């Protein structure tokens, strides 16, 4: 198990340590054997889904869910070993390759799936997610658009109204602000305002989040702006495994899904199963079961949390880490079970403090689980500032592992 994760551990270390040597967070200490924190991550969450499985998989059906449940919720070591041995023959790849694999498999499976975006075709995608697809599927299915987000998102939605399943790529999520009207009014609301006549099975995806000194406009977290649009689903991927699974599930879903990727996570390496599998769009992922505190996170912050978790474990704490994955709707079931167990919640997110996913999640938890909380919900978010260019300042805008450790210590006292 340890061997397969070295790649991930190393990349994670590279991610969170800053380039400046005067790193006051003492990250050196945290870079010890990465395998420990990942060893309990359940590998049993994959399922063999027949590739001719129905397009409309019924998420409501309890029977189905039992099969592909990631709630083998609290994974035990016993569970993971037989599973991991059968997953050994899987293949290793990077996150962007996993996205591409998911996309390619869905495009093969269903001729209605097409990709639209800037430079997705001949160029291969600015982050190589669509590399090779244009040569394989042709110009009518992998479409290079001009720089016109408003209209090509609108065109994707119009095509979806007729039954095509477009995957619209925003080269950077921030550019989709130009298409906000289309996403909000047409994508989100058409199913409702037409009384159910039209479904919009579109997937809007793209990288967002704070990268490496990309500047304010290219470091935006659009999930906070889109979260109140009724009618859309939002998911955020964080590992190659769930990236592929979520991509496939999003394409198969009848609802419009916005898939948030992160610029810094594209080179994560992981071993994923060879079989066909999808990840449930509305479920959260239990990353590390624990007893003392529930840490809710998603996307890149998951790795900061896991790094902090190592320190916390050394200090004697037992954090339960949940990658919420589904940003809209929240998986209040998994979260609720966790809160009922630990009675303390820490949310670590990359959105800004005001109006972010954390803010909504805090409200949802307080409303639903107030009786189970021993302490107020704590939420660590990015600062309410445009992301500065300077490396040190940029580091300070996002939540760092040391802050997470301090927060947990505060919560648990």
């Amino acid at each position, binding site marked *: 198990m340890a061997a397969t994760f070295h790649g991930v551990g190393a990349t994670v270390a590279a991610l969170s340590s800053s380039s400046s040597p005067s790193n006051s967070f003492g990250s050196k200490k945290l870079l010890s054997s990465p395998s420990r924190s990942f060893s309990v991550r359940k590998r049993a969450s994959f399922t063999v889904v027949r590739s001719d499985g129905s397009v*409309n998989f*019924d*998420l*409501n059906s309890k029977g189905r869910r039992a099969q592909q449940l990631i709630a083998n919720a609290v994974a035990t070591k016993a569970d993971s070993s037989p599973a991991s041995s059968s997953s050994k023959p899987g293949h290793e790849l990077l996150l962007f390759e996993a996205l591409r694999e998911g996309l390619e498999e869905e495009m093969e499976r269903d001729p209605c799936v*097409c990709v639209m975006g800037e430079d997705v075709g001949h160029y291969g995608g600015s982050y190589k997610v669509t590399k090779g697809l244009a040569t394989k599927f042709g110009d*009518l299915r992998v*479409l290079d*658009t*001009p720089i*016109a987000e*408003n*209209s*090509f*998102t*609108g*065109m*994707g*939605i*119009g*095509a*979806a*109204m*007729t*039954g*095509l399943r477009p995957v619209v790529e925003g080269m950077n999520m921030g550019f989709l602000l130009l298409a906000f*009207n*289309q996403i909000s*009014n*047409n994508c989100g609301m*058409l*199913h*409702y*305002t*037409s*009384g*159910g*006549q*039209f*479904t919009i099975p579109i997937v809007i995806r793209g990288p967002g989040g704070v990268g490496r000194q990309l500047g304010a406009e290219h470091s935006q977290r659009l999930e906070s702006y889109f979260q109140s649009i*009724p*009618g859309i*689903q939002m998911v955020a991927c964080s590992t190659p495994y769930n990236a592929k699974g979520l991509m496939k599930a999003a394409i198969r*879903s*009848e*609802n419009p899904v916005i898939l948030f990727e992160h610029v810094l996570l594209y080179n994560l390496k992981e071993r994923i199963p060879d079989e066909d599998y999808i990840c449930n769009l*509305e479920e959260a992922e239990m990353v590390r079961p624990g007893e003392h505190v529930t840490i809710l996170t998603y996307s890149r912050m998951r790795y900061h949390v896991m790094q902090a978790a190592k320190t916390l474990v050394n200090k004697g704490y037992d954090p339960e880490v949940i990658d919420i994955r589904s940003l*809209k*709707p*929240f*998986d*209040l*079931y998994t979260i*609720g079970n966790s809160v009922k167990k630990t009675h303390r919640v820490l949310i670590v997110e990359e959105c800004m403090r005001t109006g972010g996913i954390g803010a909504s999640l805090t409200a949802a938890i307080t409303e*639903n*689980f107030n009786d189970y909380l021993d302490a107020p919900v704590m939420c660590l978010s990015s600062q309410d500032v445009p992301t500065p260019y300077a490396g040190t300042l940029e580091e300070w805008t996002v939540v760092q592992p040391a802050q997470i450790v301090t927060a947990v210590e505060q919560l648990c006292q």
Partner: protein
Amino acid sequence: MALSHLAASASRSSSLLKPLSSALSLRRSISGDNSPLTVETSVPFTSHQCEAPSRSVETNPKELLTFFRDMALMRRMEIAADSLYKAKLIRGFCHLYDGQEAVAVGMEAAITKKDCIITAYRDHCTFVSRGGTLLEVFAELMGRQAGCSKGKGGSMHFYKKDSNFYGGHGIVGAQVPLGCGLAFAQKNSKDETVTFALYGDGAANQGQLFEALNISALWDLPAILVCENNHYGMGTAEWRAAKSPAYYKRGDYVPGLKVDGMDALAVKQACKFAKEHALKNGPIILEMDTYRYHGHSMSDPGSTYRTRDEISGVRQERDPIERIRKLILSHDLATEKELKDVEKEVRKEVDDAIAQAKESPMPEPSELFTNVYAKGLGVESFGADRKEVRATLP
């Protein structure tokens, strides 16, 4: 002459017989026949980057009578909606199409139900021409269950999927990229159909239009952009909003055609031409020179930015229904009285539909949460305990 005698005797008989006699007289002409008739359009077409179609339009008595009936129905429907709005049965926004009926009717005559139409918020008549029933219209306007969108859309959100009517959009100009997306799907399916994306002279200044036009021309999509130029973008006259009011030329490299939008036959000719063109050569722009008698919407009296003389002038000279009426009468396809009977019939139909719509109930409270997601997914179903929880309304 025998007919007028018959009609005269009918007027003396009981009202029960009256419809019978008028039906008798109607059977002669209103059913019409398919014998070809050629009519010249009132105004020649002006073209940009293409050859204008001929001014002579092939039609037949049946079609002319259908035009008359349909336009009379639409006119009556819009006037009725006006009174319903004033009676506060219709709330919010209500944008009326009277004066522009020829565009909806002429377009429908040139295409099939497999071609797609998408328009903005002035969509009541386009919905009807696509096959929507009056009951669906009035029920939706009044927010009742029998409405085409179950009462959840309203005036600006009429849709009819089975006849490829894609609505019904409130945000100005946003429907044009959607329309180009429909054209993209049609190109993919290779079924020789086209999309008509309608917008107004106000929307013609939206950037997304040009973006969509660029992409459609690049990808050779069978998209026909139709500018319904009624010369006013809400309260702003077109000369105050557009530097170049020649909307059919705005496509630059995309051909365009300017059409008299108050002449249903000219509209039909242009749409036929445009469909053939789009299937072969990609997008084309049609500019329909039309006029709306009402204000922009029911909250706009329509007289603060234009004179009443202008409105009545257009009504006298260019009214689409009058034009067809004169055509029918001059070709002796029906008598004055028969046409008046059609109008009365249509009025009754509208009144009946309104009465029926008023009986339709308001949507159930649970309808608040249906259709947010396909198959009822969403926050309200997955409560903290994973049961189907519907929020209780206060």
